[in-house]
């Protein structure tokens, strides 16, 4: 036992020496210091936001940086119950409804974009013919060519195509093949052997069965990551729902509009911070659960030339 503990101790001290030995490299020292400073600013910002959200109004005025003198959880209850977005028809949409809107908007768009793009990428990668090669070229073309569309024209056109202020039509509009996810999905499917599909075809499976029951399950982790990243992106987006979905404001839109709130009870910085903490919580939790899968697992292939 003593021998075993001795070996463990030696391994630990070797690992510590190896860790410190990396600092012989000046690049590592400089970058490490910069990273530490940057990390401190990020952590301090989050600590400041969280601690402010737990302070009373007077506590915040007298004590801007320190820990709360008293935990004022009622800021969260106030934010949940009192903060609202006022629509053009004078209807008020409170935070719970904003959260629901965010969930519907983000989930729907993430689902539609991820899976429609993945299906197109799958077909382009596995069914090589003139048509699919052409579609692949169109994607590259759309990615590279700078077409600047005007915000005003987009708003007008969204009204003409019935997508303005219509969540179902917005979902439909996003069934496509030309998003950045296409290239990531394409690269993912490129790693899959077609022999799985060939075996299934021999057993009598059709194209749909092969795609949905064999190939997609094999890439469910990258697809899930793409879905989650898309969900987080749409949850955090305030501009598009603000412009194109005025009667269905999301939590991010709420955060944008809350800063103009003149209600005494909710215009205080601690309550606004409490609302901010509530809004960022779902994505933060998702990220912390899936962080190991997210980082290092996605690659964007097929971009040469």
């Amino acid at each position, binding site marked *: 036992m003593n021998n075993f503990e001795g070996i463990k101790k030696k391994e630990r001290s070797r690992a510590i020496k190896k860790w410190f030995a990396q600092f012989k490299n000046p690049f590592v020292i400089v970058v490490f210091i910069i990273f530490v400073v940057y990390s401190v600013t990020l952590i301090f910002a989050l600590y400041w936001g969280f601690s402010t959200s737990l302070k009373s109004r007077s506590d915040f005025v007298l004590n*801007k940086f320190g820990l709360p003198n008293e935990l004022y959880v009622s800021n969260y209850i106030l934010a949940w119950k009192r903060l609202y977005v006022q629509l053009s028809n004078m209807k008020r949409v409170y935070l719970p409804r904003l959260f629901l809107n965010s969930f519907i908007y983000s989930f729907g768009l993430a689902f539609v974009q991820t899976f429609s793009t993945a299906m*197109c990428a799958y077909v382009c990668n596995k069914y090589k013919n003139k048509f699919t090669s052409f579609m692949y070229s169109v994607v590259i073309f759309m990615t590279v060519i700078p077409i600047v569309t*005007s*915000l*005003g*024209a987009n708003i007008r056109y969204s009204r003409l195509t019935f997508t303005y202020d219509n969540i179902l039509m917005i979902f439909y509009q996003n069934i496509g093949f030309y998003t950045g996810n296409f290239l990531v999905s394409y690269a993912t499917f490129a790693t899959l052997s077609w022999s799985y599909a060939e075996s299934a075809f021999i057993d009598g499976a059709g194209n749909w069965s092969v795609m949905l029951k064999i190939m997609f399950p094999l890439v469910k982790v990258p697809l899930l990551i793409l879905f989650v990243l898309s969900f987080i992106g749409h949850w955090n987006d305030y501009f598009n729902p603000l412009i194109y979905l005025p009667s269905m404001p999301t939590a991010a839109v709420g*955060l944008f509009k809350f800063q103009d709130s003149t209600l005494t009870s909710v215009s205080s910085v601690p309550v606004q911070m409490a609302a901010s903490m509530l809004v960022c919580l779902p994505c933060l939790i998702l990220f912390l659960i899936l962080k190991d899968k997210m980082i290092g697992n996605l690659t964007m292939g097929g971009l040469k030339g």
Partner: protein
Amino acid sequence: MAKKQTLRTRKKKEYLFIACIFFIPILNFFIFNIGGLFNTITLGFQGYSQSRGYYWNNFANFKFIVKDIMANPVILIGLKNSLLFYVVHLIMLFVGLIVAYYIYKKFPGSKFFKVLFVMPGMVTGMVWVRLFKYFVQQAVPLLFGLDYGLLTDIDTIIPTLIGYGVWVGFAGGLIIFVGTMSGISEELIEAGRLDGNNMLKEFWYIVFPHVYPIVQVNLVVGVIGLFMDGPPLYDFYGTEAPHESVYSFNYYLKIMVLKSNAGDAEYALNSAYSLIITLIVAPLTYLARYLTTKFGPSED
């Protein structure tokens, strides 16, 4: 014969399958992308009045824009600020590459930094805006004895917003860069090490060529940033930025459409601006693609 029929049937099913998958995406592409582009182009050549509605005014919008650029200093200031942010954006692209390389090499603290640095992208941008805004408006004046917050004093707004952009964009592209670097074969790295590669050589001759396609896409697609980059003024101020000297060109175009008294006439002018930008940026994008392909590294 039976085998030929089976093959023919299978091919028919395959084409039907491909058609089903692509039918709605292609339809949407024509309706929303091509249609949207057509709408922008046609709107750029139209004017609007209450009595006539939309009407063709040929190049009147473009003539107005040329006069506006000559007479309105806000546009040139906006272009200058957009260019400034574009340069910052380019610098941050390469900073992101260095951050990703550090994480990929698993240098000290990389596991912790990897998680922390991706967090700004996971949290709603408005939260960071809030945190940053309250900090520079309330805490910084208190700490340094200033009379105004950094976002109130016109002289400090642009540098402060550059600071914000650097702060939230420090590890931009981390996920995709690290993912791509992770695909580099260990044998290649080992072979380089045996040939006497130090860290710099390894990065320059092995890692950078591997991630160069992504860098190239960012550089090429990012040319549009010459006009469309800029400080996140709308996030911080809505349509009420404190002074025109802090406008970016993108913000100028945005508030043209979003201010409370904007209407269809502004939509048409906005479209004309977009067409001019596209005409300028399109050849620049091709030039960027040509230069980055000619002078960039290759994996070979």
